[in-house]
Structures are given as C-alpha cells and as structure tokens.
C-alpha cells in the first residue's frame, strides 16, 4: 500500500484556484522534494494532506486512512513553515506536551531532543532559542511516535550548514526505517543528492514529478563543460571548440547529451593545452527553472 495517495485534489478560495487537480503517490521509505515558487500552492497542498485545510475536490489517504482522522494523525509527523513555539516554555516542557498528546513516554521525548542536538538547551525557555534551535524543536516533535509519514515545510530554513547536514542524516535514518518523507524547500542544491524524487509545482499545478535523472533526460538541458586552459591557450581552445571564454583561462561550452562523447574526444585531442576539465549536468536549480517556466503551463510539457 502506498504511504500517501493524492488523487485529483483541487483547492479553491473564492474564484482563485490555489491547487489545480494534483495527483501524487509516495511509497513507504521514499524521500520526495516538493519544489515551487512562493505561492505555488505547496503549503496548501501539505495542509490538505494533513487534513488541516478542507479540499475543494479530490481525495487523499495516508496508508489507507482518511487524512485528518485520529488514526492518520497518529501515523504522521508535521513541521509547519516558520513555526514559533510559545517563548515562555522550555524545550523540554513543549516536547513533553506534544509527547503526552500522542501518549508517548517523556523519556522518549527527551531522547529525540537529544538526537536533534538540543540537549544543552533543553531546560532553557524557547524565547531564548535561535531560529535554528526552534527549527530543531519543530523537527523533534515531528519525529515523536515513530511516524510512518513525515511532512516538513521548509525544514532547513534558518539552519547552518552543519545543522543541515545533521538534518539530512536524520531524514536518511527515517527513510531507512520505512518512513515516507516529503520536504518542501527552496534549498535546491542540498536536496539534489538527498532526495529520491522531485515534484515541482507551478501556479497550483504539478509540472514535474520524477527522479532527478529522468527529469534531466526529459528536459534535455545542455551539459556545461568548463575547460581550464594551460597558459595563454584559452583563446585557441575557445575558437577550436566554438566555446566562450569567461576569463583568462576558462572556456565554457554547452552540449547536448548525445554530443557529449564526441566533444570530449575533440577536447582530449588538445590535452596538452588543457590543465583541467569540469563537466556538470543540469543542476536541480536549472531543472527547476526549466520545469516551472510559464511555457509549461500550456501543457507543452507532459506531466511525467
């Protein structure tokens, strides 16, 4: 049984359609990144998945349970965007409250706070926490009760690079244990290697939903090759290969996937003039820009 099944879900506020006929299926243990510009409908979609916002049409189920039901709520963990807990409570008090709501032992709650790296501040008031620390409390409560589905809205905002690393380690642990993880984020570079699948929303529509490699293939974006020329040969390389010199010793080339091998052969023919070479396939950021560009709305891009 799929962990999460979203079937033709729409949401309308007055005449404004925020979410347009979205279907999505996520399996247990799968990590999915939900991308989209501000106002694309990501948060509304997540809130509908949790039963917080009623759907205008469509259905969503979590492991066969209706979203918003007590059973579904016990199965899921959620981290809202920009959550700010009451400043006069300590981290421990806030966590114990959430643990009690899910009938979980206080000891377990303390252990999770330790796992997210808050043991040093556990008895300090949340009002004195930094944004990153508050975010950790938010993550900690989402992990309470070993949820089968975890939905995180902008979880890494406000986290420093090391905390982000820790965060993705926790996500990996979760998915290793069979928990489905859905993350909505703008931090594209860090998601690239950490997620199994990417779903991109634009203006309330799902414009892409696949593994990154498949999206790359489908988008067929040019591959970028940077050639570092050994002294003074940059001009020559640029001329020979029809590339662009971006400074004194670097030449930039673009090619499609099918031309790659031939081009590399031509490059290696000039190997004595080259000191280094860097080949980069389209980054998630470029893919994101490609898929969320307005032209996709007309359906020129079939939804994968």
């Amino acid at each position, binding site marked *: 049984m799929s962990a999460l099944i979203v079937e033709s879900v729409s949401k309308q506020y007055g005449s404004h359609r925020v979410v347009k006929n979205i279907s999505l299926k996520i399996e247990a243990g799968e990590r999915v990144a939900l991308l989209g510009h501000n106002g694309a409908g990501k948060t509304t979609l997540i809130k509908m998945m949790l039963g917080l916002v009623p759907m205008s049409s469509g259905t969503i189920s979590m492991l066969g349970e209706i979203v918003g039901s007590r059973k579904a709520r016990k199965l899921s963990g959620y981290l*809202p965007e920009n*959550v*700010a807990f009451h400043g006069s409570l300590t981290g421990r008090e806030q966590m114990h409250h959430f643990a009690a709501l899910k009938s979980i032992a206080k000891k377990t709650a303390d252990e999770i706070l330790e796992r997210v790296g808050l043991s040093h501040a556990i008895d300090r008031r949340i009002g004195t926490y930094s944004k990153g620390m508050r975010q950790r409390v938010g993550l900690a409560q989402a992990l309470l009760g070993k949820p089968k589905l975890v939905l995180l809205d902008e979880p890494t905002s406000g986290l420093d690079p090391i905390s982000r690393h820790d965060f993705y380690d926790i996500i990996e642990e979760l998915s290793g244990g069979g928990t489905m993880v859905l993350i909505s984020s703008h931090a594209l570079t860090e998601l690239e290697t950490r997620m199994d699948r990417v779903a991109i929303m634009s203006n309330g529509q799902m414009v892409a939903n696949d593994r990154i490699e498949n999206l790359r293939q489908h988008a067929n974006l040019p591959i970028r090759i940077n050639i570092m020329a050994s002294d003074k040969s940059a001009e020559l390389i640029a001329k020979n290969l029809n590339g662009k010199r971006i400074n004194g010793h670097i030449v930039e080339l673009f090619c499609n996937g099918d031309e790659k091998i031939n081009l590399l052969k031509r490059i290696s023919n000039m190997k004595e003039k080259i000191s280094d070479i860097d080949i980069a396939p389209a980054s998630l950021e470029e893919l994101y820009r490609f898929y969320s560009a307005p032209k996709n709305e007309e359906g020129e891009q079939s939804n994968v």
Partner: protein
Amino acid sequence: MFEVAKLELLIAKRNLWVAISITLMVLFTLVLTLAGSAPTGTLGVDPIIIAATSITTLSVYFVPLLALLLSFDAISGEIERGTLALSLTYPLSRAEILFGKFLAQLAVLAVAIGLALLLTAIISLLLNKGVSMSFTPLIWLFFTSILLGASFLGLGYMVSALVRQPSVASGLAIVIWLVLVILYDIGLLGALVADNGGFFTKSIFPWLLVFNPADAFRLLNMPDIANNVLSSGLGAAKSVTNNIYSFISLLLWPAISLLLAWLVFRKVEP
C-alpha cells in the same frame, strides 16, 4: 483536553500580564474593603455587605476586562505562531483545544477573584471584631464573578478565532468590553429617560438588563431591598425582575459564548 489546560496554566504562570492583573484585582479589592469599612459602624450594616457591594461595582468592569485580555490571544496567537496548525495534526479535537484553554484560564480567573475575596474576608474580620457578619455575599460574589468571567472568556475566544491577527483581536475585545459593560448601560439609561416611565421602562427594560451578563451580575449581587442602604437606580429594576432570570442569564452566557466560539473556531483554517 487536560494536557492543553496543563500547558496553558504553565504559560499563564509565567505570563507577566496575568501576574499584574491578579495583583491589581487584589489591590483594588483591598482598597475598597478598607475604604468601605469606615462608615459601617454607625449605620449598623453588615460590613461584608458593604464590601461586597463595592467589590461588585469594581468586578463588573474588571472581571470582563481580565477575561477578555486573557482570551483574545488564545486562538489568533496560535495561528500567528503557527502552533495551531501543529496542534491540529495531533490526535486532538478542536473542542478539546478550546475547552482545555477555557479550563486553564477559568482557573486563573478563579485564583484572582478568590484571592481578592479571601483578603476581603480576612480584613473585615480583623477590622470588625465582635460584629456579627455573614460571608454568604462573598461566596455568592465569587461564584457569580466566575460565571461573568467565563462569559467573557467565551466571547474572547470567539473574537480570537474570528480574526487571525492578535492585534486586531485585542482591539475587538476592547470594543466588546466597551459595548457590553459601559455603552449598553448608558444606552439603557438614555432610553429610560426618553421613555419617562412608559411601556419600555416597565416591560422591556428589565429584560434587557437581565440579558446583559454584566447587568445580570450586578443585579444578583446588589443587597436585598430590606437592607438596601446603597440602593441605586438598579434597585428599582430588581424589584420588577426576579433574581432567578438574572441567574439563568448568567448561567447561560458562558455556555452560549463558548458554543459561538466553537462554531467560529471549527471553520478556522490554520
């Protein structure tokens, strides 16, 4: 539900505003008790009745204000912080959240009122040694004050759920306080003068008075006519309107305001 109440009490304990308002309530009561005790010896009236009457006039203004200031943030504040969305993803119903908050804040009100009245009783005992007195008016005042507070807590939650910003909710709460506690009476007074003892005065006015929780509270705590040293304009209405209606009104108000709050809260999208 009790988990929500527990957390709210924890928050209230550390809330500076709660501490200040309890102190104010106690201080005002103290002053009223001390000031009111001066003339009683010559009049031969139970000092407790004098104190209870003064405190009633204070409570009519202060208890609703305290209740509204406790409650306006209850839902709008959680929406703003984003914790409402979170709470609702836990196995917890909206009614439980609302009622949990209500229980905790009612307890805060009870502590404030209880402390103030206990102090009144102690001071009255100390100042009037040997004078016979009955504490029933204070106990009655305690319970009716809590009912009055509960009514306005419910109205506060309703406002809090109706608008999403705490700042707007606080403004609306003050408007509710002004209208129900002050302007309502002024309006009635104006109508009385204009009517000059006609149909309105005899048939409608008493019911309008009973309908308002603050006025119902006042009617219930005014001393009996036989003992009516401090009789005010309200005394006349009291003879017309049976106390039982005021009591029913004060009993119904918390239930109705909480129900309204729940109906609004049910529709809130966090």
